């Protein structure tokens, strides 16, 4: 059973408490939401990297040197 730690600063007592059903449901929803957000972030990063590689290839095809392309992207 998942638990949480509650530290009472007025007494110095730390208590380990089992999560409520509501808290467990929320935690599962948070985990699912993170997975979705992370998948979106990775897809966006991949698309951005692919677009950059495509742009570099097109610039090279136009005759720009590697140094010139790097200067443009800096």
């Amino acid at each position: 059973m998942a638990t949480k730690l509650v530290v009472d600063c007025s007494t110095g007592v730390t208590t380990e408490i089992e999560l409520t059903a509501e808290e467990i449901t929320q935690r599962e929803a948070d985990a699912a939401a993170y997975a979705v957000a992370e998948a979106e972030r990775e897809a966006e990063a991949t698309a951005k990297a692919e677009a950059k590689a495509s742009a570099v290839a097109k610039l090279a095809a136009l005759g720009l040197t590697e140094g010139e392309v790097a200067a443009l992207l800096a």
Partner: protein
Amino acid sequence: MAVTHTLIQTVTVTASGGAANIEFTSIPQTYKDLLFVVSGRATTDNPTLYTYFNNDTTASNYVFKAINGDGASASASGTTQAWFMRVTPSSATASSFSNGVMYIPNYTGSTIKSVGVNSVTENNGTTGYTQWNAGLWSGTAAITSIKLDPYGTDFAQYSSASLYGIKNS
């Protein structure tokens, strides 16, 4: 002007299964500022650590702007969430923990609360992540409790958090 740090409480996750979150309650109202030091690791591959004040979990009441770096590139981020700090995800170097420091000035005041945060994680000596956050909680009540909540995951065993009170005299 002397600045004094007083340890209010510290806690370490001792259970092998970890802890879903850590909450400090009944925070004394006798200091000027608070300082949080967190050494954390998540039980899943998720570095997100939320910080809730006074059990207010409404995302729109929080906002942050962050500068992020991983040793290869830098980026900026920000949204209306209480994601003020990062912890080491489970895929990173075994037994390594994040370092995070959060400064909370004027926590007993009646204005909205700003926080300044720095947190870092490391991965097998090849990648290091750093995140600097400027955060805001729109609540105007004095802060009496703080919850550190790994978003959708748990603190791993041996994660720890320490809360300090700071006086300006």
